[in-house]
């Protein structure tokens, strides 16, 4: 078999067979090429969308849920409906104690504030945060550091600013770390700057983070908590955690257990699962379309080989009269099929790759790219190539069978 593959006669025969039907062979090859091309480009594009999605949401732990307090909508235990609720620090302790599978429970406080640096000023969102926020919502630090435990304990007047705020409050090329800015007329030392996250929350023009304890004191919040971010440990269902937390909170705040409006929440895990589901669906569709097109293309190759075999009936008859065994005729035709599908496949993969490169250059650049790194994994390419070779072999069996089903005597009689 190996010898057969490296024999000049083998390839000479394939070449002469292809040469006889140049145009038809070329058109057929385009059919298969198109199939694998679609597969590569669509999978690459789907991957690009997925990468982009991960880039946007990648800052957040995907198994997290945000919980905040609202107003009751049902009377309970002597309270009228419409009672305003506020989360307390003690709620956090209870949640941590009662509910299993929690990774982090991070309280946050939020307000709007006027920030001034020399003659520049702006209104921004101000947050009171714990260092753990960095674990839940990854801060991409450009300069300095995020709030640490020492800041919390000593209630330091320090702040971490977003790059956007730096642009508004500082002159170009000024090092912000170590300088002071005024937030509601109180001086804070800038200790860090981070790059804008894709999903901002709070202020329209950027966020400032100060230690949680500082915020409590400065804004006189006592034990109140604005909202909290909860992440589950791997293996724990975040939707279940969400339900458990809310039920516990209702219990603690004397709220009717069926009051759905008392506490609000946003389940990031669920939202991400939706998009991931969409992406999975898109990939499935891509595979389906790609493979279907491939099959159609490979059938076309089978068809062209049938024609070739028909035209070469006499030659095949001669070969058999000279002692070619049926298998020797068959393998030749199967190899031809595999050869054509492989050529078509390689061309399809290469052109698909080129198109992905073009997409990357045109759509994948800039601040808000539509796609990020549209690529196809090597194993996927290998699977596609293997599928192609297998299909090529299977489809080659049909003309191969036709070639040897005609008896040599009849083949020789053919003019």
């Amino acid at each position, binding site marked *: 078999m190996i010898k057969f593959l490296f024999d000049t*006669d083998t390839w000479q025969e394939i070449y002469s067979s292809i040469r006889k039907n140049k145009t038809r062979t070329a058109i057929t090859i385009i059919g298969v090429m198109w199939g694998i091309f679609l597969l590569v480009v669509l999978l690459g594009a789907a991957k690009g969308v997925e990468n982009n999605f991960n880039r946007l949401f990648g800052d957040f732990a995907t198994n997290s849920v945000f919980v905040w307090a609202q107003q009751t909508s049902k009377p309970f235990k002597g309270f009228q409906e419409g009672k305003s609720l506020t989360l307390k620090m003690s709620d956090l302790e209870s949640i941590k104690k009662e509910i299993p599978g929690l990774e982090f429970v991070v309280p946050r406080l939020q307000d709007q504030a006027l920030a001034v640096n020399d003659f520049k000023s702006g209104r921004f969102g101000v947050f009171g945060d714990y260092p753990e926020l960095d674990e839940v919502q990854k801060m991409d630090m450009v300069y300095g550091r995020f709030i640490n435990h020492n800041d919390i304990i000593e209630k330091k007047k320090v702040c971490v600013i977003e790059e956007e705020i730096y642009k508004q409050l500082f002159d170009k090329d000024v090092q912000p770390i170590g300088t002071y800015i005024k937030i509601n007329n109180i001086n804070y030392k800038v200790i860090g700057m981070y790059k804008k996250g894709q999903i901002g929350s709070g202020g329209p023009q950027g966020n400032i983070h100060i230690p949680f304890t500082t915020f409590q004191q400065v804004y006189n919040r006592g034990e109140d908590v604005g909202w909290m971010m909860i992440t589950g440990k791997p293996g724990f269902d975040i939707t279940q955690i969400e339900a458990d937390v809310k039920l516990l909170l209702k219990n603690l705040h004397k709220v009717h257990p069926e009051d759905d409006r008392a506490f609000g929440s946003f389940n990031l895990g669920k939202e991400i699962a939706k998009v991931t589901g969409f992406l999975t669906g898109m990939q499935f569709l891509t595979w389906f379309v790609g493979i279907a097109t491939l099959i159609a293309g490979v059938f076309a190759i089978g068809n062209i080989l049938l024609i070739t075999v028909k035209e070469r009936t*006499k030659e095949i008859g001669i*070969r058999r009269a000279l*002692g070619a065994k049926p298998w020797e005729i068959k393998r030749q035709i199967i190899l031809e099929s595999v050869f054509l599908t492989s050529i078509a496949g390689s061309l399809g993969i290469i052109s698909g790759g080129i198109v992905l490169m073009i997409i990357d250059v045109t759509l994948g650049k800039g601040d808000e790219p539509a796609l990020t790194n549209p690529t196809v994994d090597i194993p996927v390419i290998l699977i596609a190539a293997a599928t192609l070779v297998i299909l090529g072999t299977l489809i080659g069996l049909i003309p191969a069978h036709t070639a040897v089903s005609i*008896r*040599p*005597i009849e083949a020789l009689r053919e003019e």
Partner: protein
Amino acid sequence: MIKIEKLHKSYPIGKGSLHVLKGLDLHIKEGEFVSIMGSSGSGKSTLLNIVGLLDNHDTGNYYLNGQLIENLDEKKAAILRNKFLGFVFQSFNLINYKSALENVALPLYYQGIGRKERNKIALQYLDKVGIKDRAEHLPSELSGGEKQRVAIARALVTNPKVVLADEPTGALDSATTHSVMELLKEINREGMTVFVITHEEDVAAETDRIVRLKDGIIISDEKVQKKSNRKSYV
């Protein structure tokens, strides 16, 4: 070499069947130069196809080189054809995209002989049929006589037991016919059994033994009386 006993063959035609060979008995010994004569429809081609293992017979026995031929599948038939038989066809049946040399070497390819070796052997046989200098030419660049010489070289290249020639001169003019027949004679003189099918009297006359076929029956089987004594060649 070839022994046929009570050979019958019929072909289905529509609902009925056409009885082509009606009980042939024929014995061809090693080294004979035999021609089968007959008009078209006499069954001579059918006989050649059966002898050439290209077709199956219905009843009767066929021994090739002492081996009873029965229940042949395509693979076995292919091996036997390659080993024992060399074919020469009326229309040459050369493969048009292969050079003369490659055409001659083809049966050796199916024996699994390496490229260098088979080209060497093929060249020897092209030399033997006198067209070594045309080795690299494609069939389309050769004359009819040259093509048939290539075909004869191809038939001989596996050193078979029998050369089967089906109207080998049917597509040739008289001068070329003569030279091709001379070549076949020469091959026969070297000991090869040659089995020629023809409808031309003068071609048959060049052979040693003429078997006449009519309507599927052998009507005569006689040695040819030569003007020149054949023994003088030996």
